[in-house]
């Protein structure tokens, strides 16, 4: 990690999220290269790109769930670990076992755990917050339902409620619209807009190009590196999309792959740069 040579953020109130030159590589497969991303407060940033572009990886790397090979990440000007209580997270729905013996309320209450810290158990106030979050996503009638007895859209709303219960300023959402019905999608986007109006910042991984320009005011077009990033109308051009989804990328990924493999065999420099 060579963070010291890089310029520090200059403005007085630090951006909710600043990613600089982030590179992430799994043991064999390189995934993200030199990602730069600054999300201004109160923006909804859509992370869009083809399958395997590293969208989820980016979210996970921001939260330190995956080790980064180089670059730095600052959340409100701090390393992520110092800002955990200010970050809410909606993982992909498939990432958990829905047969787990908890009900919807239990899951939402987990959103309070980060603020509680160790050795403390949820209080009545925490439970009330969890209830109101369930209410916001219109899931209060299902609070006592075991989570496998919920539909896909309902499960997604429970995950959203859990993130709301975190009462964070920055939200990272991994494909919150996958497998939900149209009504749920509309309800979710409404809640996201509400959060935005409260000045919160949202980073949302999204795979549906048709709705992306409607949902987000900024878009990060991703395909292993940043293809384009900025205001939606500037970024969402045919050329950029062609760049992100088109054939040219396969060469890059091929070269990247062979370099990483050479590195694994020990005859390439430590730091993969393209």
């Amino acid at each position, binding site marked *: 990690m060579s963070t010291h040579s890089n310029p520090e953020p200059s403005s007085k109130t630090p951006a909710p999220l600043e990613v600089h030159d982030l590179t992430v590589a799994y043991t064999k497969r390189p995934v993200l290269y030199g990602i730069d991303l600054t999300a201004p407060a109160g923006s909804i940033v859509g992370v869009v790109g083809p399958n395997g572009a590293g969208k989820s990886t980016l979210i*996970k790397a921001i*939260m*330190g*769930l995956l080790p980064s090979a180089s670059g730095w990440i600052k959340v409100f000007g701090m390393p992520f*670990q110092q800002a*955990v*209580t200010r*970050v809410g*997270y909606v*993982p992909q729905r498939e*990432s*958990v*076992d829905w047969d*787990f*013996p*908890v*009900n919807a309320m*239990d*899951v939402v209450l*987990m959103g309070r*755990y*980060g603020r*509680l810290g*160790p*050795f403390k*158990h*949820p209080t009545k106030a925490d439970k009330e917050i969890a209830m109101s979050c369930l209410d916001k996503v219109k899931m209060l009638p299902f609070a006592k339902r*075991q989570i496998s007895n919920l539909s896909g859209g309902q499960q997604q709303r429970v995950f959203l409620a*859990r993130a709301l219960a*975190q009462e964070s300023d920055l939200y990272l959402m991994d494909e919150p619209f996958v497998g939900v019905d149209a009504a749920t999608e509309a309800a979710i986007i409404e809640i996201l807009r509400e959060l935005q109006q409260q000045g919160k910042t949202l980073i949302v991984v999204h795979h549906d190009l048709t709705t992306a320009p409607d949902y987000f005011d900024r878009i990060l077009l991703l395909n292993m590196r940043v293809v384009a990033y900025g205001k939606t109308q500037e970024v969402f051009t045919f050329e950029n999309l062609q760049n992100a989804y088109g054939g040219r990328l396969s060469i890059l990924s091929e070269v990247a792959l062979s370099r990483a493999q050479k590195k694994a065999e020990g005859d390439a420099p430590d730091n993969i740069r393209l």
Partner: protein
Amino acid sequence: MRAFWKQDFQAEANFSRMNRQERTSVLVPHLRLLASLFLLLMISSVAHAAKIGEIAETSWAEQALDFFALKHPAIRAAALGTLLIGFCCGTLGSFLVVRKLALLGDTLSHAVLPGVALGFLWNASKDPWAIFIGATGAGIMGVALVGWIKQTTRLKEDSAMGMVLAGFYGLGVCLTSMIQNMVMGNKSGLDKFFFGQAAALSSGDLWLLGITSSISIVLILIFYKEFLAMSFDIGFAKAVGMPVRALHYLLMALLTFAVVVSLQAVGVVLVSALLITPAAAAYLLTDRMHWMLVLAAVFGMASGILGAFTSYLSNNLPTGPLIVLGSTSIFALALVFGPRYGLLTKILRRKRQRKRIALENTLKSVFHLSENSGFTRKEFDISELAKERNQDLASTEKEIRALVAARLARNVDSEGDTEWSGKARFQLKKSGWHRACEIVRNHRLWELYLTNAAQYQSDHVHDDAEEIEHLIGEDIVQRIEERLRNPIQDPHGKLIPRRDQITA
């Protein structure tokens, strides 16, 4: 006092034979279940034979009294020990079950064997502390090795666990066999570590058990929310700043302790079953994690006591298999009689549903009769209904009787009379008529929804509606109605009963 918990020399002599059985059972875990079932069949006869052999010196009830009065210190030790073991293994095993790590329990229990042997060799005696330290070390090494293989190779966790399990166990069997062959080995008592003998629990073992149980329960209480969050969604737990790696190793350490202290009474081979089975039974009975922990603890303790007691009754059967049989029986009961997911419940529910659907179909036919008359007639006789439903009089009469029994219809001619004939007339009660309207409404709305909103052909929709009419609730029906903008007619031109008409 019978010759209870006496060293069984024949078992000692059979030890090497047992070893061979061991190795096979590692490779074929299912054999264990079969063997257990076989044992279950045998227990009664064995206990019986023992009783006859000893000329019924004590009756079954007296033995039970003897055991549960806890007069004899060996019995006290065995009872307390198996209770604590059941408690420890039940609670900690719950986390294995919900995290789908059942095989890890198996790996852990087999991996400790070489540690047991080395602990024994330390000062050539069955010193519980030396064995505890050796076994814990081996167990942690085994788990760490699984993690290391998973991280550094492309092998997945299950293969890693399978290999570590067998490798460590093989080493353990060799070491224990060597000890057995040494002079001192004759009375080493190491064979008890294979199948377990609750009577072999020393006061040192009990201390260890007590300490481990206390530590486990205290740590689970303190870190309950961390363990819960981590087990459900490890990414989220990490994202909210929980030290998930440390928590994972803490849980693994507790599990290792539980396995090691249980070895004496349950044995290496079957201790994993005690981790999994009570927790699995609890999982079938509840949808909340904390209740699962409580139930698993109770089931574990019950299995422990049950095992110790049956072992006492049968005199020379090892405790481990009996404890596991106890927990397997509890699991079987939960599987069959569980109020939510039990087989019996499912069967009853299905039966009730079939009955309800039959009633509703009859009601619907009566509605059709009434509709054909332009809703002018309310009384019908059985032969009319039989014709409408296209079936014989006898079964139609049965259906009407069911309606009457369910208080949905009444016999017009003779209130409560048992004499029925083809001409017997009946009328729907208000509740029956409401239900009939509801079913017809569900049916016709669904047909309309399929044709209008889902673009089905109108001649394709009837059969589907026949099924759906019994299943959709009022909320969905109302949503369909809104979606279709309160329609009046179904695709075949028939009127759809309106909500307000039904309740009016």
